[in-house]
């Protein structure tokens, strides 16, 4: 069983839609949760990180962690074509992180 599972998509939405990206993880000891955005031929760019459970909001992005169900989510409001990228979730104990395979998102103008 993988430490972090993520639906690879691809996901295609119209501009302005709300996007929901999700991952599950298996290790209840994980305390740190991150979302990265990766454009083609670039390195992952940290979008959001949360510690333990709860929500965190930054502009159009909201990250949620539900430790009881081992579920992590990223919501993108008012999606823009520039949001088209691969989104990677990651979880870990602090110094070692496990990544999902990434979800490919396309926002259509």
């Amino acid at each position: 069983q993988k430490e972090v599972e993520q639906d690879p998509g691809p996901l295609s939405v119209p501009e302005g839609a709300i996007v929901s990206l999700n991952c599950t993880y298996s290790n209840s000891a994980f305390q740190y949760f991150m979302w990265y955005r990766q454009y083609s031929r670039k390195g992952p760019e940290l979008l959001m990180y949360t510690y333990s459970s709860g929500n965190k909001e930054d502009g159009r992005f909201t990250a949620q962690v539900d430790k009881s169900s081992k579920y992590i989510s990223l919501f993108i409001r008012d999606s823009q074509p520039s949001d088209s990228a691969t989104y990677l979730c990651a979880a870990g104990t602090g110094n070692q992180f496990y990544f999902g395979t990434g979800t490919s998102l396309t926002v259509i103008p």
Partner: protein
Amino acid sequence: EAGVTQFPSHSVIEKGQTVTLRCDPISGHDNLYWYRRVMGKEIKFLLHFVKESKQDESGMPNNRFLAERTGGTYSTLKVQPAELEDSGVYFCASSQLGVGGTEAFFGQGTRLTVV
């Protein structure tokens, strides 16, 4: 502020040859990580340096891989001899000490192709 820089951006070598990848972390970042993504798979942890010391190298695939970080600044990852299954994108990331690696900034990666 310069980000994490990796050299080369792309390397094509023959099976059995040696390749050395380099990572320059963000200045002042004591944590340095190497990750690898094999095609179609998730990004996987290789090892973690704190300054010049290897904190965790549990992800290194085998003894053909050697990572160093002399002086606690830049790091190199050498693969000797390279095998076909070593092909993939090698990422380096760095973070400040004490942050627990949560705000890790990644380089653009080195795409290694072994033929």
